[in-house]
């Protein structure tokens, strides 16, 4: 039995410790927002947060994630209101949408580490995420917009 904390919920799973976290999340736990695109760390469709870091769950053995804090796209925000999610909707980023969970999860770590990224920083942080539909120009734009939204929210008095 391996204990996993996904989006603040604890799961006990009886799987091969070598099984990639991706398939545990999708097939065993049943959260399908995290996607399979390549299985070899090339496309970023499977990005989740492991203790706040962006990791490619397709090449992360489930044993490595045991007892750690995992966040998937379903846990990025409670009400689809993360600044990135708002910006994505405002700028109408997705086309087919399949890559977008991974894009958002990578972008979330970028924004946390660099609240005001320029284009070069965005390109560097997001180059691991493929989008076959070619939504890259909008991803760039929406990350800038999310940075603004994040800053505005930060300024609000509590």
């Amino acid at each position, binding site marked *: 039995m391996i204990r996993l904390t996904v989006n603040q919920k604890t799961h006990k799973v009886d*799987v*091969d410790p070598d*099984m*990639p976290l991706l*398939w545990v999340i*999708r*097939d*065993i736990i*049943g*959260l*399908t*927002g*995290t*996607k*399979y*695109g*390549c*299985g*070899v760390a*090339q*496309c970023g*469709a499977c990005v989740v947060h492991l203790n706040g870091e962006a990791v490619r769950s397709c090449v992360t053995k489930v044993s490595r994630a045991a007892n750690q804090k995992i966040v*998937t*796209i*379903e846990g*990025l*925000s409670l009400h*689809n209101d993360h600044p*990135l*999610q708002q910006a*994505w*909707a405002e700028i*109408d*980023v*997705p*086309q*087919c*949408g*399949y*890559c*977008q*969970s991974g894009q*958002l999860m990578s972008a979330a770590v970028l924004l946390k580490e660099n609240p005001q990224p320029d284009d070069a920083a*965005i*390109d*560097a942080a*997001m*180059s691991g*995420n*493929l*989008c*076959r*539909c*070619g*939504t*890259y*120009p*909008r*991803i*760039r734009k929406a990350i800038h917009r999310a940075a603004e939204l994040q800053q505005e929210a930060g300024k609000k008095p509590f």
Partner: protein
Amino acid sequence: MTTITRRSFLKNAGGAGVALWLGLYVHGEVGKTTSPVTAAHFTPWILIESGGKITIYNTKPEIGQGTFQAIPALIAEELEVSLDQVTILNSNGEKELGTAQRAGGSASVRTSFSDLRKVGASAKEVLIQAAASTWGVDAATCYAENATVYHRASGKSIAYGDLVETAAKIELPKTPVLKDGKDFKIIGKSMRRPDVPLKTNGSAVFGIDVKVDGMRYASVERCPVIGGTLKQFDASAALKIKGVVTVVPVERVYGIHRNTGVAVIADNYWAALQGRKKLRVEWDTKGFEHFQSDEYEAGLRLMVSQEGLTDKNKGDIDALTIAPENLVEAFYETPMVAHHPMEPLNCIAQVKDDQVELWTSTQVPSNVTGSGPNDLHKLIGVAPENIKLHATFVGGGFGRRLYLDFIVEAVNIAKQVNYPVKVIWTREDTTEQGPFRPMTFSQLQGGFSAEGKLVTFRHKVISPSYAESVGRNFDPNKVDGTMVEGIAEQAYEIPNIRTAYVRAGYHVPVAAWRSVTSSTVAFAQECFLDELAWKAGMDPMSFRLSLLSAPSDTKRVLLTLKEVSGWDRPLPKGSGRGVATWEFFAGLCGQTVEVTHLSDGRIRIDKVVAVIDLGEVVNPDNVRNQTEGAIIMALGAAVKPDIRLKHGKVTHHNFYDNLLPRISETPLIDVHILAEGGKVKGVGEPGLPPFAPALANAIFAATGKRNRKMPFDLHV
């Protein structure tokens, strides 16, 4: 076609009370334009429940192109409801919704633009009449807005939901009055798409995400040598993997290509993959293991000497003698590429007695459940009425999901077990197995008169045949129209044109890839036009316009492009600008590309400007999104490694060697939309063909290097 009376759709919709299906279906055959209307019957596009809930069916699978909004928008506009007031459901190939439930050919909006508005308008007229008769007033004194009918004079109103029962008894008008474009509230406005929120929180369900009770997972080992098939296999080691349940042979059928692989079925997908690695399989490679792309292509080059079949013959090209110094000739080559939708191919199939149930991401629900000669039932030997489809959001299509091979394979597995099976292709499977976009080689020749006018133009395409591969409408004595797509149909006024086709046999399955053959032949033809311009000593834009004296859509696009791209603005030394345009079945787009030749030899793409001609536009922002995406996809096909075979096997495997453009390679893209009435044109594909030639032409302008072969280097 069956005629279904609307009465049969008045039914009890559970707790919602009486529900009313409204809608006029006026589509003709798939792929045909719909006027004049040939068949009309009543069918359910709109469901209004007495509680007020309004559901609109989207009959064009949402593959990323925006139909989940654009299609309901056409209906909602005329029905006088806002999109926030309706529930949108993807259709599942239901017979009543007709045979045009498919996403292909950039056809969704352009073929439905007035028909689906009629669906909404006829429903609205019935609802207005129902209200008028309730009040005992003339329908002409009432109007609809916001899902409510109002009586103009008294201000009385009734919500649509409360009109359901009365409306159900009224015949739908066959020729409803459509709104004037200036009154549109939805069409023509950039609106947020309702699927976007679902695609930002993981809740959009794609085929690969579906879970069915009792379902198991399968991965299929297919012969790595394309064309090979199964001889025998030993599954004993595979069956020892924890979670592996069984291993079965399975046939996949794609057009004329039939091959058997080995399916490993397990409790979870990971176990199936592990089991697959342990299979010991002996293949019958039938001599295809000697196949080399290099040799095949050398053969294509030699075939240029064949006359081929004449496609179009305009004027009298043989009667003209062109001085040798006035002739320009060139040979262009384009490669095979893979589709690579981000969502790998997948399908859940369940077979119970003679019933088949499917859950999958497909571009063609109508061909899954239909009774046509090329539909699924023929391939699996099951009556069409016994096939039930659950269609989902589609994680990219690009043409790959127009085909049924992966569904056939899933059904063939499910036939051998008594539980539902979800088959998922690995990325390696999609890279290595095809079908691929076919390569086209082009011989071009242009001839100038003594006065310097372009008077002759020849384009001969040498390539495998799409029709032959997919086994549809193939006749070796006829030109495969798909392979010469658009080459004789450009607006340029050249008095003598001959286009021809030389077919090369090929055992590798080929397919339509976003913008089909226009994605390759346009490269050859539009680069060659650039060569002719330089030969004529003219600026490439002026040269094109000099061939367009009469008004045409292409002329309009080029004139707009000239202006919005700042074509006449001088560029610094080392920079260059290229232009290309292409009109084909899907639509029309022109583009300019600006590049800079950097001191280290690299070519930097500074800017792409696109002008897309649509006639009518539903959601401008979505059109821009589509065109940006088409350009980026075209960039990949222009400069990234192609699909090649060595010893019969594809040499690439996954995204580490079959590269796709990444965000860091994305140029600045500026999209302009022309929607000035006239023929309604498509959105999804037209942005693709002009990009590669415009880029190559820009590189020539900047460096003097002419690229006549794709993929080419962004390094000179």
